[in-house]
C-alpha cells in the first residue's frame, strides 16, 4: 500500500496552527512582563517657569523643581526638600498665589469616588486638559468608599472622598494622603405634597434621627410641626414619610450619620456613622445609587426625605417635581440656610484647628450662622507614585485645583455651590502635596 506522504500544503497549515500557539504564548509572556516590570521609559523634561518669584531648572526624569509661594497671615518659612525641591515662603499678605509648571508629560489620570465631588471634578478635567493637553483626566462618580478603596489599591490615582480616612484605615494604608480640594456641604431634601418648594422646613438632628429610625412616620407628626411656624405646620399633610438612603458606599452617608451621631447619643451608640451603616428597619425605606439616584428617587415618591450633596442642589430644586430643602439646626440652636455665607462661617470656625494631616470634620461647627453639615472634599492620593511622570502631574493637578486662580475660583465653585479653601488650609495642602514623590 502506498504510503500517504505529507502534502506540503498541509505542512503550511500546520505551521499556521503552531504560529498561532506561539503568538498566544508570546502575548501571555508580554503581559506577564508588563505586569512585573511597570517601568515606562518615557523621558520627561519639564521646564518650570515661575513668573516673578524664582527660577528653576530641570534636568532629567527624576529631578524637578517646583517653586510655590503661598502667603498667609502668620509668618513661617518652611523648606521641604526631597528629590523635589519646594520652597514655601510666607509673607504677610491675604492672597495665595501658586505657580505651576508649564508642560507636563503625557499621562492618563483616573479619579473616582465621591459623587458629591464628581460634578466639580467633571468641570475641572476638561479645563485642566485645555491648559495641559497631554494630561487626560477621567473622573467618575462611584461613591466615597470606592474612591478610598481604589486609591488604596492603586487602581486610580485620585480617590475622591467626603470623609477622611479613619484611624484604623489610615494605619493600614499609611501612604495615603488626605488632601482637601474644596469645601462642600450637604442638604436635606424632601418631596412633601402640597408644600410650595420655596418654603423651607426646619429640622433638628434629633427629628431627623427619629425619622430615619422609624419613630416618626408621617409628615404631620407633632415633633416636626413643633419646629415649624404655625402656618407651615398647618399645611403639613398626613403623608407617610419615605426616608431614602444611599445604597452604595457613600461619603454622604458618612456626613449625614455623623451629624445624626453628634446630635443623638442614642444613634451614636447603636448605629454610629460611616460610608455604610446598618440603617434601622423603616417600612418603605428606599435607596438611591449616587447623589443622582437620591435626587431621582426622591422625585418619584411623594413624601420622601433624603440627604443630598450641595452640588446637586440646582438639579434637585429644578427637577420635576422640585424638591424642597431644609434649614438645619446648628450647634448654636439656630435654623440656618445652606447659603455660601453660612458654609463659610462653619469653615472659618474650624479651619484654624486643622492638623497637618488635615483629617478634621467641619460638621456641627460653633457659630451662630454656621451650617451644620459642611465638609472638606478630599482627594486621596498615594505618597508613592510608580508611573514615570505621574508624581509631577498629580502635584500640578492638585495645586491647580486648590489655587484660587484656577480650580478654586468662583467660575467652577459657583456652579456646584462649593466654597473655596481658606488660605491656611491651602498651605497645609501644599505641604502634603509635596510629599507625593515618584519617578
Amino acid at each position, binding site marked *: 500500500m502506498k504510503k500517504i506522504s505529507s502534502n506540503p500544503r498541509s505542512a503550511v497549515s500546520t505551521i499556521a496552527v503552531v504560529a498561532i500557539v506561539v503568538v498566544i504564548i508570546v*502575548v501571555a509572556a508580554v*503581559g506577564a512582563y508588563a505586569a512585573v516590570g511597570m517601568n515606562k521609559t518615557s523621558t520627561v523634561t519639564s521646564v518650570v517657569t515661575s513668573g516673578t518669584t524664582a527660577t528653576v531648572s530641570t534636568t532629567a526624569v527624576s529631578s524637578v523643581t517646583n517653586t510655590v509661594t503661598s502667603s498667609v497671615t502668620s509668618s513661617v518659612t518652611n523648606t521641604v526638600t526631597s528629590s523635589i525641591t519646594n520652597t514655601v515662603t510666607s509673607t504677610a499678605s491675604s492672597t495665595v498665589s501658586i505657580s505651576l509648571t508649564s508642560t507636563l508629560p503625557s499621562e492618563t489620570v483616573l479619579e473616582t469616588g465621591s459623587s458629591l465631588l464628581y460634578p466639580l471634578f*467633571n468641570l475641572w478635567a476638561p479645563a485642566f486638559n485645555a491648559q495641559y493637553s497631554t494630561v487626560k483626566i477621567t473622573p467618575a462618580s462611584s461613591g466615597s468608599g470606592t474612591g478610598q478603596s481604589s486609591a488604596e489599591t492603586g487602581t486610580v490615582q485620585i480617590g475622591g472622598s467626603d470623609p477622611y480616612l479613619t484611624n484604623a484605615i489610615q494605619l493600614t494604608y499609611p501612604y495615603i494622603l488626605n488632601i482637601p480640594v474644596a469645601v462642600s456641604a450637604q442638604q436635606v431634601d424632601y418631596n412633601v405634597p402640597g408644600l410650595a418648594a420655596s418654603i423651607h422646613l426646619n429640622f433638628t438632628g434629633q427629628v431627623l434621627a427619629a425619622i430615619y429610625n422609624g419613630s416618626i412616620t408621617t409628615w404631620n407628626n407633632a415633633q416636626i410641626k413643633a419646629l415649624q411656624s404655625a402656618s407651615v405646620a398647618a399645611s403639613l399633610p398626613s403623608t407617610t414619610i419615605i426616608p431614602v438612603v444611599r445604597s452604595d458606599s457613600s461619603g454622604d452617608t458618612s456626613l449625614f450619620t455623623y451629624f445624626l451621631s453628634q446630635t443623638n447619643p442614642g444613634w451614636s451608640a447603636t448605629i454610629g456613622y460611616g460610608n455604610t451603616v446598618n440603617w434601622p428597619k423603616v417600612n418603605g425605606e428606599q435607596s438611591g445609587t*449616587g447623589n443622582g439616584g437620591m435626587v431621582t428617587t426622591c422625585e418619584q415618591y411623594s413624601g420622601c426625605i433624603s440627604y443630598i450633596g450641595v452640588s446637586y442642589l440646582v438639579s434637585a430644586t429644578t427637577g420635576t417635581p422640585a424638591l424642597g430643602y431644609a434649614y438645619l439646626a446648628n450647634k448654636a440652636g439656630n435654623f440656618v440656610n445652606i447659603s455660601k455665607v453660612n458654609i463659610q462661617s462653619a469653615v472659618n470656625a474650624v479651619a484654624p484647628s486643622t492638623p497637618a494631616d488635615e483629617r478634621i470634620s467641619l460638621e456641627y461647627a460653633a457659630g451662630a450662622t454656621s451650617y451644620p453639615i459642611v465638609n472638606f472634599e478630599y482627594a486621596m492620593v498615594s505618597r508613592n507614585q510608580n508611573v514615570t511622570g505621574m508624581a509631577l502631574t498629580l502635584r500640578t493637578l492638585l495645586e491647580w485645583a486648590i489655587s484660587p486662580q484656577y480650580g478654586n475660583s468662583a467660575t467652577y465653585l459657583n456652579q456646584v455651590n462649593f466654597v473655596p479653601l481658606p488660605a491656611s488650609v491651602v498651605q497645609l495642602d501644599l505641604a502634603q502635596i509635596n510629599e507625593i514623590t515618584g519617578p
Partner: protein
Amino acid sequence: MTESNLATVTEVVMPWQDSRVKSNYRRRQILDKVMKVLALIAVVVVLFPLLDMLYLFAYKGLSVLSISILTETTSGGGTGSSTGGIENAIVGSCLLIGLSSLIAVPLGVFSGVYLAEFTSLHNKFAEAIRFISDVLAGVPSIVLGYVGFLAFVLYLHWGYSAMASAVTLSILMLPYIIRTTELSIRRVPDSIREGAIALGSTKSSMINRLTLRFALPGIITGVMLAVSISFSETAPLLYTADFNNYLPTALFHQPVGFLTYIVYVYSNLPYQSAHNLAYAASFVLLSFVFVVNLFARVVLKRFSKI
C-alpha cells in the same frame, strides 16, 4: 320480533346527532379557540416590550444622534455643562471585542476542531472538555468580573486595562465558540471526508482545506453571536476596564471606555445631557445587536452549503 323491540331499535342516535356529543364538541372547539387567543396574547405581551424598547431607543437615540456625538469623547459630558459624545466608548467597545476575539477565536475554533475531528463523541477527554466548557458558559458574568479584577487587575498588576478586559471577555466567549465549531464540523457529511481521504489527503490538510470551509458559515455564526454577547456585557468590564473619557492609547495600565458603562451610569445621573448620551449609547448597542443577529441567523443560513 315484538313491537316493543322495534321501538327500542329506532331510538339509536348517530354521534353527530347526540346532543351530549354536540355540546361536548362545541365546548372543545371553544376551548381550542380560547387557547389560540391566549397564545396570541402571550406573543403580543412579549413582543410589545421589545418593540417598545426598539422604538423608544431608536426615536430618542436618533433625535440626539449627531456627528458630534459620534466624534467627541465623553469628557465633561454628563453634568449639564457640556454635552460630550460617545466616540471613546464606541472605539473602546470595538477594541475590546477585537482583542477578545483575537484570543478566543483561535482557542475556540481549534478546540472545536480537536473535539470534532480527533475524538469520538464518547471519548473521556472530549467529554471532560465539553463539560468544562458548559460549566464556563454557566459562570455568571459578575463572577467572571470578580475573577478578572482580582487576578488580572490586582494580582498581575495590569491595572484597569484593555488586556484585562479582553482576557476576561475571552473566557466568556470561549464556550460558545467551542460548541458551535464542534457542532458545525460534525455536521459536515462524512462523504466529503471520505472523498478527501480517497484522494490521498492527510487529515490536517483535509480539515483545513475542506471541512473548515464547509463548516465556516456555522463557525462564523457562532463567532458573531459570541461577539454580540460580549459587546453587550457590562459586569465583567466594570471591574476590568473601568472607564476612560478619552480614546485608548495603551493596552496595559490604561482603562478603556465602553458603551454599556454609559448606559449603566449615565442613566442614573440627574442631567438631561447624561440621559441623552445614554440614549445614544443604547441606540448604538441595539443597532449592533440587531445587525449581528440579522446577519448571523438569516444571511449566513442562506450561504450554508449543508
